[in-house]
């Protein structure tokens, strides 16, 4: 029996969905609101929602005190570089696992995923020491490599799932048509997997953008991305909520805008393969 969709039911479900959505979004909304308050209004009790003196003072101070553009540029290079490099390495890896699986393929996939279960701090020491030895500390290339490796399991898993959806017969047809392995991946597999590759790119860009543990621990000044920019406002001079909020808003704005415009692609990417 089909479920009855009465008007009341629809209204209730809609309201419930909005409530949940707003609850999840509330911290971000609050951060954005606070960034437009004065420090005094930010800690006002009771909290002020919309009726306060809106000001851009915090943004001006933040921009004056630190070079936002340099952090932004570092974030773009690190998130973009690690994602692109990761995809270039993961495409052939996912190809082989999806189309020429061996008895161990499942094990390798699970092993790759299991590395994500290890607390990152567990390998901080060795990686930190290696970075010192190799002179990679506080360099963009160092962070590109670390973030690429950290996100590699997710990239491979996502691509593997997409590739599994592509009928093997089409790749066999390409082989019969005289395509070399390189042409097969370049002209047939990749164009067919573009939606999947695009959502993998997006999701990993966001993950790398938001990554704070490694970016905070392995950078100081030169290669510091926006995560370090936010962190620099958190403690030393006591709690300046309004300025901290302004810094946070500036840090998340680019990725929020990117996410907003690509939400269709992201949702499709995350639910791909769930329903045949």
């Amino acid at each position, binding site marked *: 029996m089909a479920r009855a969709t009465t008007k009341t039911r629809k209204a209730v479900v809609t309201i419930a969905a909005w409530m949940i959505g707003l609850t999840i979004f509330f911290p971000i909304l609050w951060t954005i609101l606070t960034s437009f308050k004065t420090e005094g209004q930010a800690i006002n009790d009771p909290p002020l929602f919309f009726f306060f003196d809106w000001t851009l003072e915090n943004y001006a101070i933040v921009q004056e005190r630190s070079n936002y553009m340099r952090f932004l540029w570092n974030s773009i290079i690190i998130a973009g570089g690690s994602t692109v490099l990761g995809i270039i390495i993961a495409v052939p890896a996912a190809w082989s696992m999806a189309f020429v699986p061996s008895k161990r393929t499942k094990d390798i996939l699970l092993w790759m995923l299991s590395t994500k279960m290890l607390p990152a701090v567990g390998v901080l020491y060795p990686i930190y020491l290696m970075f010192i030895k190799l002179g990679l500390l506080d360099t963009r290339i160092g962070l590109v490599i670390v973030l690429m490796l950290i996100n590699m399991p997710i990239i491979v898993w996502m691509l593997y799932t997409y590739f599994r959806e592509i009928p093997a017969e*089409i790749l066999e047809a390409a082989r019969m*048509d*005289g395509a070399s392995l390189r042409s097969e991946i370049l002209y047939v597999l990749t164009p*067919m997997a*573009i939606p999947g590759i695009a959502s993998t790119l997006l999701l990993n860009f966001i993950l790398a953008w938001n990554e704070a543990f490694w970016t905070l621990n392995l950078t100081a000044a030169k290669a510091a991305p926006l995560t370090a920019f936010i962190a620099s406002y958190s403690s030393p001079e006591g709690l300046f909520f309004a300025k901290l909020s302004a810094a946070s808003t500036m840090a998340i704005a680019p990725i929020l805008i990117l996410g907003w415009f690509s939400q269709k692609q992201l949702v499709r990417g995350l639910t791909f393969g769930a329903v045949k």
Partner: protein
Amino acid sequence: MGQIVLNKVQKKFDDVEVIPPLDLTIEDGEFAVFVGPSGCGKSTLLRLIAGLEDVTSGSIQINGRESSDIPPAKRGLSMVFQSYALYPHMSVRKNIAFPLRMAKLDKAEIKSRVENAAAVLNLTDYLDRRPGQLSGGQRQRVAIGRAIVREPSAFLFDEPLSNLDAALRVGMRLEISELHKRLDTTMVYVTHDQVEAMTMADKIVVLNAGVIEQVGSPLDLYHNPKNTFVAGFIGSPKMNLMTGEVAEKAGAQTLGVRPEHIAVSDSAGEWSGVVGVSEHLGSDSFFHIHETGLAETITVRADGEVNFKHGDQIFLTPRTDMMHKFDGGGNRIV
């Protein structure tokens, strides 16, 4: 040009032997059909010839050249897949041109060959469409177009018509047969449909559990099936196979007679039975006869005008010159 010779070709998946060592020769220009029930290894055998699977042992020669270690692209063969396997992101033109692009032919040559193939297959108006915008029959034609532009030494077809509806299937069957006559190139065709095998083949290879049961022309297989498997598989409706007294009297373990070789009458005949289900095709009528004491059901083919009702008592007379005798092992007694 397109002779294919299999010599003791064997295929194992892990420890499971799907094709025991097997010999087969397909002559140049021949239309060979591999037919058998699903899971008999016919597709695997085709994929071994294509190079999409590696042989476990034995050799495959194409055009007299040892090919078992050559990658599929270098064997000079074209393949048409059951799912068509068109490139969904390319237009029809680019699909057909793909093998030529891979062979690095110059642009003018590619253009003329693609247009030629499109004209032959009535695809000229669809060249700029994507496969998703075509009907099943048109997609199949594109797949064939992609196969013919390469001018291969042999074509391989893997159940190419099974995704089409019945009417289209008959049409495409004729088109492929005509294509074979025109190109005069070796074709190896896999199907589970014995009607396709009978109508298209120069040579039928009947496979069962990876083993070749019989190789021969369609009529050879029809008239002289080597064993009960081939007898039951070739011909529609199936040959009636009877055991017991009637077979023993003829000096055999199993006696076979085709539905079209039994005469029906309402008054007199050698055997008698009761009419069960009748199937009227217009041109012919098939009657399934029970209670004959020979086999559970005897199928009879009669003229389209003949009309018996369910439960009618009728009499059957087989043509003794058209009976097939098989021994205890199911092999033909000559």
